[in-house]
Every structure is written in structure tokens, then in C-alpha cells.
């Protein structure tokens, strides 16, 4: 008898990503579908808008990572209006952006992803949330987390006016210079940041790496996918969030492509399925072979682990050290272990903090010369940044007045859409046998899902990470015969 299992992040009606698992007659997993039931059409209604407003329009795609869209859009405008930002403007943007990356990665580790490890995958679900983390690491540290987040968000607010949907980006620069005393404040924050990132890595060591079960879990096959990886690197092939070339490596870790943002269309294509509002990007030169991994499938992965996989290291000393240690532990590059995204995320957080400190300590950064006024006629512009959740691409075309005539957006999480489906299906296969659906499935699948820190506000509409789940086991007619439900 065929069964259908519906895993619905909070029931279908709330539509923030839905997983359908079909079992074959033996009760083994035949197929799993991740559905995205939402779309807003930013690409379409951007048409007709003045290009310079795009940095204020596109952040509304996502209230969790608005800074990413804002900066990416601003970079697309630099290209569109063919204007080079002043040196200090570039620094200020990257400074603001680093503060954001640090804050966002920390948020994920402690509030969203962390509970799986800090509290432990086998702990009762009721404890596997931020309160559980607090209980485990203590209120004082929880306070630190909240404070770190606030400090970073204050920096973004200083430049952007508002941390949710900042507004400061302009082609050729930024709307507001940095004052000396704010610079000094930022130096302090960055120092906390570095300490705090190191401290967080220690927690990861203590509670995760020192625990054999966890390490096995990370290295285990259930969470492995040999895919291509994509991420942005600087001229020395070091990880860079703000600027550089996009690099792609094969499942064996060989460089497959290294391209400039403007050439993205030669490398990335998107596949459409009738059962989901999201699209499934893949490597154009490999081609779409369905939801499968391996060297012949165009499916690739982005975000922290991917970025570390495509790079030759980190541009700051402490982060470089952690980078090496990680790959050592994981048995070399590229690492295919989905759960290692959490670790990579912490390495990146340390890099973000160190980079922030470098920039803030540069006294030239208070130079008031923050704008170059565009002079040439706009036509087409492409901007790429590395979002917490992966490579983000904004591509605009305009008429001569700078009115958008076409916009194409490939949003971080979407790059991972296919891989997420696969990870879920694989986790399910590993855990559903002969129609028996174990309680553990819930957590395990959820962990697979959350490792990517999927921001479906970007692709769909859910917030990243911790999605309360329920599993409905249905018979062929779709009647629910079993409900697994965490409360």
C-alpha cells in the first residue's frame, strides 16, 4: 500500500515551504518533494522603477537579510551607471556588510541552528530552542549573544538609517560618511566580535567536536552530498563576501569555473517545476539531470561550507587557522558534509569580525569623499555578493533614463533549493524503512533542512532555520493514519 507523508512546516495553510514524501509499495521512500508555495514577482514589478530606487525596493525581498540585497543592488547600480565608488565608499560598504555577516551568522548559530548541537539532537524537542541553549550555556552568555547582535545592528543602523531595510546605498558611493568617534566605537565592537567568534568556536569544540556521536553524525553518510560548490573569492582565491570573482569547484574540488559577475548567465541556469513556485538553479555547462548529486549533475551548493570549499583559505589570520583545522578534521577539501555548514559558518563569523576590525582601524575610512556622481548613460548592470546563505545575484537592464526595463534576481537560498530537496530525501531514505516512520525522522530531516539556514523569505516567505515540523502519514487516499508531531 502506498503511503504519502506530508511534512509541513506548520501545516500547509501557512505555506512557508512544504515537504511531500511518497513511499513505494514496500513502504520505502520513493520520492520527496520540497514545495515553495509563495512568489512575489520583484523581478517583474521592478520594471518601470527608477534604477536608483532598487536598493530601497529589493531589500523588501527579505527582512532578515535586507543588508545583503541592499549592498548587492547598490553594486549592480555601480555597474549599471558605470561609476566606480570612491575608495572610502567601498570600505564603508564592506564594513557595514561585515557587521551584518557577523550578526547574521551568530543569530543562526545560537538562536536557530545551534540548538541541534548545543542542546543536542537527541534532546527532547521542547528544549531544542534558544531557551535550551541559554539553559546549557548560561544566561550570561545568552546576554552576550543578544548584546553582540545589538552592537552590530547599531552599526548597520548608523549607515543605513534602519537595520531592517537600510537605505544608504547609491551608485558610486554611499549617502553618509563615518565620523571619528563612531569609528572608534566600531573598533571596540569589532574587538568584541573577534573575541566572541573565538569564544563561539570554543563552545563548538567543547560541545560538538569533543562528542563522538556528533562528529559521527557530521561525517555520516546520511548528511553527505557530493555536489559542485560555488562562492566568491578575491584575487588570491580567499573567501570574500563583498567583491571578487565567482569560483566553482567540482565534487573533487577541482576548479570548474572562475567568472566575473557579468558572465553569470554563461554558468548558471534555472530549472522550473510545475509543483513549486521556486526555481532550481544548476550549472549550465553540466546541465540539469534532476535532483541528484555527482559530477554529472549540474546541482551545486552555496553558503558557508561551499564558500570554504571553493576558496584556498581565509584572508585574515585567525580565520585561516580555523579554516585549516576544519578541513583537517573533515578529511580534506571539498567537504561534502551538510552538517559542516554550521562549522564553516563560525569560521566565516570570525573572518567577518577580523575584517571589520581591519577596516575600522584604517583611519582613512573617515574620509568625507563618499560619492562619485555617475556621468555615463546607464544600460545594464550586474551585482554579486555573498549572502550569509550563499551567492546573491542582481541583474538590471534600463533605458537611457535609467528606468528598469528588465530585472533578474537569483537569490542565495534558491541556489540550494535542489540540494535541500536532495538532503531531505536522503535523510528520509536513511530513516524510513518499510513504512515505519520513526520519531527521529522529524529531528533528522529538520537538521538536514536547517543546516542550509534556508532563508525562504528570500525564495519564498519563511524565516530561516528552526521550523516547527509535523509529519502526517497518509494512506493512498490521503487520509491521515499517523501523526508525528512535536510540541
Amino acid at each position, binding site marked *: 500500500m*502506498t503511503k504519502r507523508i506530508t511534512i509541513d*512546516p*506548520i*501545516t500547509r*495553510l*501557512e*505555506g512557508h515551504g512544504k515537504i511531500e514524501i*511518497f513511499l513505494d509499495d514496500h513502504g520505502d521512500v520513493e*520520492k520527496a*518533494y520540497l*514545495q515553495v*508555495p*509563495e*512568489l*512575489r*514577482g520583484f*523581478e*517583474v*514589478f521592478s520594471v*518601470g522603477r*527608477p534604477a536608483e*530606487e532598487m536598493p530601497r*525596493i529589493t531589500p*523588501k*525581498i527579505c*527582512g*532578515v537579510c535586507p543588508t545583503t540585497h541592499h549592498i548587492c543592488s547598490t553594486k549592480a547600480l555601480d555597474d549599471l*551607471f558605470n561609476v566606480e565608488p570612491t575608495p572610502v565608499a567601498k570600505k564603508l560598504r564592506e564594513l557595514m556588510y561585515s557587521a551584518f555577516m557577523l550578526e547574521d551568522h551568530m543569530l543562526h548559530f545560537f538562536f536557530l541552528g545551534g540548538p541541534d548541537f548545543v542542546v543536542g539532537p537527541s534532546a527532547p*524537542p521542547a528544549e531544542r530552542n534558544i531557551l535550551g541553549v541559554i539553559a546549557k550555556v548560561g544566561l550570561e552568555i545568552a546576554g552576550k549573544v543578544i548584546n553582540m547582535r545589538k552592537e552590530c*545592528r547599531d552599526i548597520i543602523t548608523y*549607515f543605513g*538609517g*534602519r537595520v*531592517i*531595510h537600510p*537605505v544608504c546605498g547609491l551608485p558610486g558611493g554611499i*549617502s*553618509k560618511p563615518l565620523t571619528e568617534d563612531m569609528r572608534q566605537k566600531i573598533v571596540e565592537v569589532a574587538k568584541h566580535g573577534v573575541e566572541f567568534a573565538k569564544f563561539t568556536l570554543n563552545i563548538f569544540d567543547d560541545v560538538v567536536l569533543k562528542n563522538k556521536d556528533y562528529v559521527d553524525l557530521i561525517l555520516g553518510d546520511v548528511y553527505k552530498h557530493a555536489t559542485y560548490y560555488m562562492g566568491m573569492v578575491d584575487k588570491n582565491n580567499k573567501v570574500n563576501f563583498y567583491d571578487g570573482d565567482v569560483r566553482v569547484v567540482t565534487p573533487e574540488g577541482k576548479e570548474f569555473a572562475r567568472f566575473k559577475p557579468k558572465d553569470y*548567465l554563461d554558468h548558471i*541556469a*534555472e*530549472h*522550473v*517545476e*510545475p509543483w*513549486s*513556485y521556486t*526555481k532550481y538553479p544548476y550549472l549550465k555547462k553540466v546541465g540539469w539531470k534532476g535532483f541528484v548529486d555527482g559530477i554529472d549533475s549540474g546541482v551545486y551548493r552555496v553558503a558557508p561550507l561551499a564558500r570554504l570549499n571553493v576558496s584556498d583559505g581565509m584572508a585574515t589570520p585567525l580565520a585561516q587557522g580555523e579554516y585549516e583545522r576544519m578541513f583537517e578534521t573533515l578529511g580534506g577539501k571539498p567537504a561534502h558534509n551538510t552538517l559542516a555548514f554550521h562549522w564553516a559558518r563560525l569560521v566565516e563569523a570570525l573572518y567577518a569580525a577580523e575584517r571589520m576590525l581591519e577596516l575600522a582601524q584604517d583611519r582613512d575610512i573617515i574620509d568625507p569623499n563618499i560619492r562619485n*556622481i555617475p556621468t555615463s548613460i546607464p544600460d545594464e548592470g550586474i551585482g554579486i555578493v555573498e549572502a550569509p546563505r550563499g551567492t546573491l545575484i542582481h541583474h538590471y537592464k534600463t533605458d537611457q*533614463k535609467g528606468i528598469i526595463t*528588465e530585472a*533578474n534576481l*537569483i537569490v542565495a537560498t534558491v541556489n540550494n533549493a535542489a540540494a535541500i530537496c536532495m538532503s531531505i530525501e536522503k535523510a528520509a531514505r536513511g530513516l524510513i524503512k518499510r513504512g515505519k516512520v520513526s520519531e527521529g525522522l522529524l529531528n533528522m530531516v529538520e537538521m538536514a533542512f536547517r543546516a542550509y539556514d534556508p532563508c525562504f523569505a528570500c525564495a519564498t*516567505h*519563511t*524565516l530561516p532555520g528552526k521550523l*516547527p515540523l509535523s509529519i502526517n502519514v497518509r494512506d493512498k487516499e*490521503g487520509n491521515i493514519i499517523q501523526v508525528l*508531531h512535536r*510540541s
Partner: protein
Amino acid sequence: MAKPKVAFYWCASCGGCEEAVVDLAENILKVVAAVEIVLWPVAMDFKIKDVEALQDGEIAVSFINGGIRTSEQEHVAKLLRKKSGLVVAFGACAHLGGVPGLANFYNRDKIFEYVYHKSPSVVNPEKITPKESTMVEQGELTLPKFYDTVYPLDKVIDVDYYLPGCAPPPDLIMTAVEAILAGNLPAKGTVLAPDKSLCDTCQRKITKPEKSVIKELKRVHEVLLDPERCFLDQGIICLGPATRDGCGERCINANMPCRGCFGPTSRVEDQGAKFLSALASIMDANDEAAIIKLTDSIVDPAGMFYFYSLPASMLGRRIDPDIE
């Protein structure tokens, strides 16, 4: 005595409003302590069916953010209305439709056609388009219906109060929550923010000449922006005069002009039309050619004046024979 039941829900929103709640930081704990949360998809694990199980009106207040774009958002909004004593439209999208409401210049077909067929990165030779129901070999997969139009919450259900802003600032959220808990509430339909326009508290007002005239209009990227001078006086479109006060001039503090996320004052029905009227009135031109030259220098009037409020405007959307 039992704590009041509270629900938070998001419709066609970006999650920024949820972040705004999280940004209440320690205050959030106060709130959580004072109420019993029965639905908060982001943070807590409750099911719609739990809500369905409640008595009508059992929820003291539901905070709903985001506009209404799909059948299921509509369904949940209506369910929460039924179960709630009070419904608060939370944030610009629920209040006005918000930036995603600019989609009302287009319709479902136009959006689908571009996103799934025309977009330069899409490879889709069979012209596949997502459908509400798809038969895969294993069975049926369904998706909610995607409407032609984005609606502000009050075009779908009866709304008691509005918390404006993209996203609402923490102080307004706290004042509102405290007012609701204390039960000292203004008249139904009130927008929980000051009822004057932004100029009232704008620091740049002192620089504004009594004889404000627009001789020429500039776009933000075309000129260096004077950090002290009134934007309109610089010839930069700033919706401040037609926008409700209470945001703390967040954008203006970043030296960028207002785009109107707080919506109009209570007396105004159509924010865009009112701003248009004010702007046109102070244009320094009387002969037709000069007037047209000035008005043509505003490249996207509807998009600019309805940046956040197209779905809540009088026409609500582009009039389009192809829509339902």
C-alpha cells in the same frame, strides 16, 4: 486570571516585521510574560488546527503582517479574524500593501511569464508553469492560488488597529502592546502613530524657506545630497509632507529622502494623490510647456508616490482588462 491569548502571523511579508519584534530585545520577554502566545510561526510550534479549535473571539489580539496575495493567506487571515477580539495590521504591507504591492502594476500572468519563461537564466523549453494542482507519478501536489492583486489586510478582513512602518519601530510596538494590554485603546480604525506629517519632527524643517518652490527636480543619484537641507528644497522627491510622523526620520538620518512607509495622515484617503497635489502645486511654472518639462522630469510618478501604498490607494492597482 488567565493571560490574554495573542497570535502573531505573517502573510505576504519579508520577515522584517518579525525581526522588529525580536528587536524589542529584553522588552519581548516582558510581553511574552504577560500574554499567552497561541500562534507565532517563526518562533513557536503551534498549528493552525490549534487555532481552529479555539472559540470565536478567544484570541485577545492577532498581529498580522504582510499583504494578502494567495488564497491561503486569505484563509488564515479570515480564520484569525473569526477567532480574535482585536486584529492589528502590523507593518506597512498589512497596512498599505507595502513595496510588494508595486506588483499591482502587473498581474499573475505577466509575473509568471517573466519569472518562469522569459527570465534570462531560465531554461524552460516546455514552458512549464507552476500550477495549483500537479499530478506527479506518485500522486497530486498542490499549491495555493496566486492572485492577480496584492491586498492590504483591511481589504480582506475587518481591521481594528494599524501599526505603521516598514518595519514598525520598537517604541511604537511597545506603546501599542502596552495600550492593548492595559485596555486603554483609541477609536477603532486608528493608526497607532502621531497624526501629523513627518515634517513636524524633521530636523531639516528649519532650513526650509517659507516660499518653497520647485524649479527643477533631481534624482538621488544625480547630485550630492546636502545632509542638512530640506530634500524638497534640494529638488529631491521626499514624501515626508504626505507621510505620517513617528518613524524618527530613520531614512532622513541616513541622508536619504522619505518614501512614505508610514502611510498618510488619518484625514487623507490617497497618499500618492495628495503628495502629487502638493508637489505639482509648488512647481515654479505656469506655461504649459514649462509645466510638462517639470512633470516629465519625474520619471515614475506612480511608483514614487505609491512606493508603499499602491494597494491601499483609491484605485488599488493598474486598471487592467486581463485581471479577474
